[in-house]
């Protein structure tokens, strides 16, 4: 059943802008991204937005829909009341380029700061052996599609200048660090950097990153907190530190 819905979309660029209202026909089964495309095709050819796979696998169409960081392709229209006006905004944490498109290059810069994977030597027969039980954890983190919704919602980056001041690398890269740190083959010691360069202490584990993750990765419980615990092992646990002193 087709209905007419009202969309309130922020349009503009780094110099300014405002909300523009659209009345648009919506058919059964549509997601917000479909509606935005229809608006683009029929009413605003130059409405800027990012998208790619349309199936929640690439993490391109991140935006804020009714105030919540979401993937537009995974937000079904039937999750809203018919009379509801739907507000669509660009991500808050990153500088706006145009309309719903933001400059997320800061994230790529953070990724580059993380030292690369350093595997141990292969087994004598040329294979690497690691076991499913041990890589389950790492595989969960590697489900990340880099939509940066967690980076957007994290208040340290969003409201506390963590991005501008480079004090915190953000949830996405803490779980990337976790995926390397917990990798059975990786030999690099990343713990000092996790605390000192990437700011694990800045996270106050309020778990908004986990709440918005479209891949349902337990970012905080399985990634960040275990990293924090490894930092404690190294820097804050007097007994563990003493034991290392004595036994090396």
């Amino acid at each position, binding site marked *: 059943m087709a209905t007419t819905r009202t969309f309130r979309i922020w349009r503009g660029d780094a110099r300014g802008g405002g909300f523009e209202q659209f009345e648009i026909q919506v058919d059964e*089964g549509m997601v917000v991204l479909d509606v935005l495309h229809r608006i683009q095709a029929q009413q605003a*050819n130059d409405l800027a937005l990012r998208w790619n796979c349309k*199936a*929640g696998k*690439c993490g391109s169409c991140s935006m804020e829909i009714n105030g919540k960081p979401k993937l537009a392709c995974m937000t079904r229209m039937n999750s809203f009341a018919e009379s509801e006006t739907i507000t669509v905004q660009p991500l808050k944490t990153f500088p706006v380029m145009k309309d719903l498109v933001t400059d997320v290059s800061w994230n790529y810069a953070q990724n580059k700061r993380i030292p690369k994977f350093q595997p141990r030597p292969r087994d004598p027969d040329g294979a690497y052996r690691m076991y499913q039980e041990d890589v389950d954890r790492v595989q969960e983190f590697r489900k990340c599609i880099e939509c940066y919704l967690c980076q957007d919602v994290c208040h340290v980056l969003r409201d506390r200048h963590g991005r501008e001041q480079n004090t915190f690398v953000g949830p996405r890269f803490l779980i990337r660090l976790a995926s390397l740190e917990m*990798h059975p083959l990786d030999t690099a010691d990343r713990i000092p950097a996790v605390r000192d360069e990437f700011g694990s202490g800045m996270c106050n584990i309020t778990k908004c990153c986990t709440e918005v993750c479209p891949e349902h990765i337990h970012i905080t419980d399985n990634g960040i907190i275990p990293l924090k615990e490894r930092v404690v092992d190294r820097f804050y646990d007097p007994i563990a530190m003493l034991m290392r002193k004595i036994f090396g």
Partner: protein
Amino acid sequence: MLNVSEIQTIDHDVLVVGAGGAGLRAAIECSARKLSTGVVSKSLLGKAHTVMAEGGMAAAMGNVDQRDNWKVHFRDTMRGGKFLNDWRMAELHAKHAPARVHELEEWGAVFDRTKEGLISQRNFGGHRYPRLAHVGDRTGLELIRTLQDHGVHSGISFHMECTGLEILKDGDRVAGLLGYWRETGRFVIFRCKAVILATGGGGKAWPVTSNSWEYTGDGTAMAYNAGAELMDLEFTQFHPTGMVWPLSVRGILVTEGVRGDGGVLKNNKGERFMFNYISERFAPETAATVEEADRWLKGDKTARRPPELLTRDEVARAITAEVKAGRGSPHGGVFLDIASRLPADVIKKKLPSMYHQFIELAEVDITKEPMEVGPTLHYFMGGIKVDADSQMSSVPGLFGAGECTAGMHGANRLGGNSLSDLVVFGKLAGEGAANYIEKLGTPPKVPDAHVTSAVRAATDILNRESGANPYLLHEKLQETMAKGVGIVRVKEELEQAIAEIEAHKKEAETLKAPGASQYNPGWHEALAMRSLLVTSEAVARCALMREESRGAHTRLDHPGESKEWVNFNCVVTRGPDGAMRVEKRPRPPGPAGLVAIANAKIEDLESGAVGADAK
């Protein structure tokens, strides 16, 4: 007046166009050879269509079934490709794939494991043994993320959200590429000694496709415009299982892994119809009864594989036939049932993103209900004609890798062979470009005149007072292709489609995009239409020329494979007058050793009666 010297220029030794698996692998290789390497991508890094690949990457490592080796993989590939594959490419692919998988692991990829701690391998359509290294059903993401994270530490320059428009040449040789930044709409000239195209296919010309907006055949069209030969464009693969409902997700892929893990296809009578569509070629290796198929799934090595795992062209045609006969599902597909085959928690563990995709996009719980699926345009087997070993096209300095090239997959690609294709030939293209540059004498110069005319053609779209809407033209083209160049084709419809494409080309000259050049999707769409029209025309013209049914190309008026046509390729070039030319070109015969392996009985291959001396 346009002043070329005011356009931004960036210098590299090699420019890679496309940041999917092939592009990234090629860039890593160039960079390892100490070349200044740039990568241009239309999207952000890590978003390329490779992330959509689900099932896995085929490599005959023999971790799960030790009988597997490159010869069996090669034989499967040739048979799947209906013997139209480039012999050398299929050979290189089967031989190199295991090393490329191990290399990914060394760069941080975490594949699913066997009990012994090795890389696990799964069954897939057309593969004799469990062969696909995989990570659940998100193998493509793993591949691209691994290459991306490795690549950022290799000194590669990434130029994101930048679209290539034209290959620039100095005489015959490649001299650079003209592109534009999507954000600002400003033009940029990349001056380089070699260009590697890794731009994928042109699936966006069809309305029902698993391809994203990026799939507009840019590389294929740029190569064609630069004078390179294209080949085998008539072979467009329809993946048998795409989502059919709701409309907005129509075409999105349902991984073949569902069938590999035991999923079965049923019509609206609840019948497992694939048993009625087993062709002669595959009958000796396909289960004859439901009972035998189930034994195979349980790992019985004496049983033969279920017919749901026949090659993609066979399954797609069977589904189309069932729907035509009125035995389809409510939304015009058939049912794919995994719910009655596996316990819910196993489904969620083995097919997490499929579970996710259906529950969130279609509100269907695949652990309880069957999925509705139908064919969706998925892959271009054809594309730029390249040399197997160097991956160089017929234009010196212009290379290709991955889906935008032709030859590797012949008339039909096996599932799982594309991810391995990307890394095998990505690496070879990188080597090819590096070797070419080593031998290159004086560096090429970018000609101003070409830049001026290309920029003007692009900006005309913005500057016109009024003109056709690019989005509407795209819809018209999709209608043309769906109607005339679909899964089954006939002469009259193809001729009609070509006539329509000619009309679309005329209209494309009058496109108008309102607004400024800064991040303007209307303008991007208009520019992409120019590429899409080239690839669409090439597909239609090749399809008209090939008078037989082979692999993914089915001609109702020429049923069955012809003995003659297996010896020919359709080669496309741009004539001096700018018109498209298609030529029926004889193929060189395959090396005797490879021919023997491809045609061998599986028992003879395994016993060593055939191919024992092949290394």
